[in-house]
């Protein structure tokens, strides 16, 4: 989608409102990216201060959520957009919701860091979770780039990658189970870490959702509950 497409509107005001919600959702995306990055680095370095700042800043993410939803509702009510404009507003609303959840997952990871830090027994497990986190971070960044550029190919690639994330998560679970079996006293801590890993895997799923909204916006097709092969077939046909 070129920005020039937005220009075919009789109302400049409407134009800038649409550009406005686009910028705001991406700005919120940047904030969430930063939260996630800080949470993972806190996990890696065992830094409680960073983790606490993530927990504290989550209210900002929530504030963005409320603000963008309000603006979108206003646009829907006053402008009654149609066709691609309507799809844009809907895509923004859904993306905002997913971003807010991602922010929550980052907060969950940060809380885990605060509880678990100091225990050096599980370095390799922590290392694996950090690696999973870094991959998910990349995925989020690319999903938001795809949203900014309305780039379908990038969006499809992200949906493709989600499988890798799921596999890594499964490997983390397997390693955790081995750990718990070899040392039952570590179970509470390891359970905590599994919840954090699960949260990261959920972030991966939400990045997939955001990519699907991109495809929805550009192609007008809702592909949320179709398989990957179906998606590719439909897009090649349309």
């Amino acid at each position: 989608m070129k920005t020039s497409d937005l220009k075919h509107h009789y109302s400049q005001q409407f134009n800038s409102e649409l550009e406005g919600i686009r910028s705001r959702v991406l700005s919120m995306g940047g904030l969430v990216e930063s939260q996630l990055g800080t949470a993972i680095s806190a996990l890696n370095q065992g830094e409680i201060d960073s983790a606490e700042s993530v927990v504290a800043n989550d209210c900002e993410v929530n504030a963005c959520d409320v603000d963008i939803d309000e603006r979108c509702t206003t646009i829907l009510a006053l402008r009654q957009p149609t066709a691609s404009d309507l799809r844009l507003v809907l895509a923004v609303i859904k993306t905002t919701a997913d971003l807010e959840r991602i922010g929550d997952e980052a907060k969950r990871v940060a809380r885990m860091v605060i509880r678990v830090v100091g225990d050096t027994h599980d370095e390799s497990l922590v290392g694996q979770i950090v690696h999973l986190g870094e991959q998910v971070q990349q995925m989020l960044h690319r999903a938001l780039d795809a949203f900014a550029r309305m780039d379908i190919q990038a969006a499809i690639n992200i949906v493709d990658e989600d499988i890798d994330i799921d596999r890594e998560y499964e490997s983390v679970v397997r390693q955790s189970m081995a750990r718990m079996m070899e040392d039952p006293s570590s179970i509470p801590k390891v359970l905590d870490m599994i919840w954090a890993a699960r949260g990261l895997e959920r972030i991966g799923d939400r990045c997939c959702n955001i990519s699907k909204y991109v495809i929805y916006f550009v192609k007008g097709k809702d592909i949320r509950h179709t398989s990957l092969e179906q998606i590719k077939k439909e897009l090649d046909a349309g």
Partner: protein
Amino acid sequence: MLVAWAAGAVLDQVYLFLLLALLAYSFRNLYNLRRLAIWLGNPNFADIPVHFGLWGDIYSKIARVSLRQAQREKRLAELVNEYTASTSALPDGAVALDARGRIRWFNDAASRLLGLLPAKDIGQPLLNLFRNPEMVSFVKNPDYARMLQISAPGDSERKLEVRLAPYGNDQTLLLAQDITERLRHERMRKDFVANVSHELRTPLTVIGGFIENLQMDESLRNDGLTRPLELMAQQTARMGRIVEDLLLLARLESDSYRNQNDRVDIGELVRNVADECQALADDVPKIDCEVASTRRVLGDEKQLRSVVTNLVVNAINHTSAEQRVALSWRDQGAQSLLEVKDNGEGIAPEHIPRLTERFYRVDAGRSRDRGGTGLGLAIVKHILHHHDAKLEIRSGPQEGSSFICRFSSSRLVD
């Protein structure tokens, strides 16, 4: 026309023939006009329909104008190519933004450093792609004098230094430089200094301890040993002070060390230090003290005491016993100034910018003898930086010196 008239006269039908001639002339002109219009629709300079007379003139003039135009366009295209080539060659990233923050163009380096896609990202608001919250607030409230250090979008290992420059009609130029290597080197240097200093501390303590023991040993009292032991003790102590100062600087440089909780009474501090320094020796110049402000500074008391002591000791070292040193703490509007002024030998202008460099000496021989470490002003500068304050130095040869610490309102309380 003449032919027509003559023929008409002969045939006694002048007006008829004149009329026919006139009509023929008009049709001929209309025909040429139409030819010109068609030709202009798809001008081909190699195939000009008419070469002579008025029409030929028109055609050749049109050809000349077009040729000049084409040459001008060619020159402009060459200039644009040269310009694009030179911006591509720039090692730093440059992005031009319009009044609404949308990308107008960017060079290859910007594409590489910021992950921008050539051609595709033109027109996209930069902040949609460079989403880091610090960047967003930097661009929305630009401080054109400030440079922001930030991670590259999508690549947290790469560190950039970004600055903004306004130009034209509300347009902004964003410049980004890759400082990853530079930061790495700085970190290595700091780590090295801290490690070396740490390692030296213990051996120095051990040596110093034994020298002290030897000095106190009655059985070793003889003239030959006293002086050497004295010198050894002094030099060891001096090395110890340098190591301590280096370690202090290393701690100050690492941002994690910040105490902002003491409400330091500078007036009281100034009086204390003045008294202490006055008592240091007999040949110390007179130290005057003027406290005109009751404001306090939010920060670290020990560090601020260090600042005052350093400045006063420097002043004493550069003045003779008959001269004076004046300390003052006063307000200037929303800011407050701590000044240490002396009427001693002063500093030549070429030295002033380098005074706060580590180990920088104006007069190498003399300061070392006094036991100075050469790190005092570097420490003062760092501590002031941690307190959001600035150091101003005014001096001239034989004119004395004035060292002013300017504290901003953000750190002052009444």
